[in-house]
């Protein structure tokens, strides 16, 4: 329990999610419940099997390298919670 709890806590940090210890207990329990079914996969022989990342057989889809009109600056900033001087504003970084 302790190791999975610590691992999920590290996952919350990686995922930039503030999670209280009480919430973490609930999520860890749910992860423990579902991981059992995922562990069943480990017994399946896949030695010579390639992974499926994409079901389509097509690869390397190219398009003409042409310029078209993108979003205007105003459109791109319209949904931003905080804007200053035509740019996204964020809290201090360093």
């Amino acid at each position, binding site marked *: 329990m302790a190791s999975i709890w610590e691992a*999920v806590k590290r996952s919350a940090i990686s995922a930039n999610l503030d999670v209280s210890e009480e919430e973490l207990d609930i999520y860890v329990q749910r992860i423990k419940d579902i991981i059992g079914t995922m562990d069943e996969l480990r017994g399946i022989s896949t030695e010579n099997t390639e992974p499926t*990342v994409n079901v*389509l057989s*097509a690869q390397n889809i190219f398009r003409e390298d042409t310029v078209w009109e993108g979003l205007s600056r105003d459109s791109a900033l319209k*949904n931003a919670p905080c804007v200053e001087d035509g740019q996204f504003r964020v*809290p201090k970084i360093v």
Partner: protein
Amino acid sequence: MDVSKLTITETRALLADRKINAQELINAFLSYIRKTDGDTKAFINVTEEQALMRAKKIDDAVKSGKNLGPLSGVPMGVKDNICTKDIKTTCASKMLDNFLPPYDATVVERLHDAGAITLGKLNMDEFAMGSSTENSYYFKTKNPWDGGRVPGGSSGGSAAAVASGQVVYSLGSDTGGSIRQPAAFCGVVGLKPSYGRVSRWGLVAFAPSMDQVGPITKNVRDCALVLNNIAGHDSLDTTSMDCEVPDYERALVDDIKGLRVGIPEEFFGKGTDPAVIDRVERAIGILEEQGAICEKTTLPNSKYALPVYYVIATCEASSGLARFDGVRFGCRSEAEDLVSMYKSTRAEGFGPEVKFRILLGTYLLGPENYDKYYTKALKVRTLIRDDFERAFKKYDILVSPTTPTTAFKFGERMSNPAAMRQSDLLTIPANMAGIPAITVPCGLVEGMPVGMQIMGRPFGEKTLLRAAYTYECHRGCDYMTPTTGGGLGEGV
């Protein structure tokens, strides 16, 4: 005029014959929504003003003798994870409560070009994560057949709005069954097209390797008509296939003589309600009466589809949802520094199910788990695809129940996530393989609709639609409604 039972074909005829104009029609639908949605709660946002403006344009075009698009004046609803320009697109999440997309999704743009009128945005599980629409940030949508039961999910609002007649048709999205399961629960037709058949541009992604947009309609003809207008290559979506799009309406031929139908035994197992199996077997009997050659087959690796799905979907979601960080769009919680702002924004903006899936996906992608779970799941996904590939060498379509049970009661599975996951047991394999699958209502169990699922070869939507249409022609009614039952009783 009772607009609630109109199909696309009937609506087009009413407008073409000038029995009603587009503005009158839209007003009739808006009035019906006002009357019913306090109870059904399918809509997050009704776009009355935009709908009436669009209807006026269509009426003006009619007066000036202009050619109209194939869906001109026909009202639709759109799942709220599909972007609509300057109309709120929330994904039923606090995170996007005020998000106004600067563009339309390609599917919306294509339907609007065909003359469709959007009546509003429909409720769903937050970020499409769920099977009952109980995970919406806003409210729960009721199943029009029984207000004490869920409409299914995640496209629960889309299915409920069509079943209750608030819109003629709707768009949903399907990652593991999110079109087909709610369509089956609400007694309507729902199609998940082949992966790559319909553009995903403007669909807010949940798990991009499986997501597809598709129609929810009252009957199979309407499904073909909508697919005709949304299918096809889109250079804005690199996973959209540049291949021929047939006329799906022409596939609607009442003839399945010699069609080879496989019945995968794993889909009729102990987890599926015997009464549901009974209705589907009766429907298969109708296919046989019409000349289909039906026989049992096996998809042995499909039993692993559920865990494979939960590994892949949560891994993709945990990565994709990283973009919701309070900088460019969505809500923001103020904090002293950037990382604290990210963390508190995401803690406040996401609901518990979304947080759980992000955590699970991040955990599974961790260095100690990546190969053990993620790479393994991708390999087992190949085995599941191989099963389908083998089956489709012998059969034209595969038929099964869409869901193991009919719609369940509110709250019944929220405290039992394993039981909730089971409701997608029979729909997930098609997403694993990227194949098309449709659900068609095939009877009732204790007054609730049952869906028959038909799966086909990649890009084989024509065959699916032909089989579904033939079944519908001989089922005994055009479509089922919560008020009439459509003539399909318990014993059908």
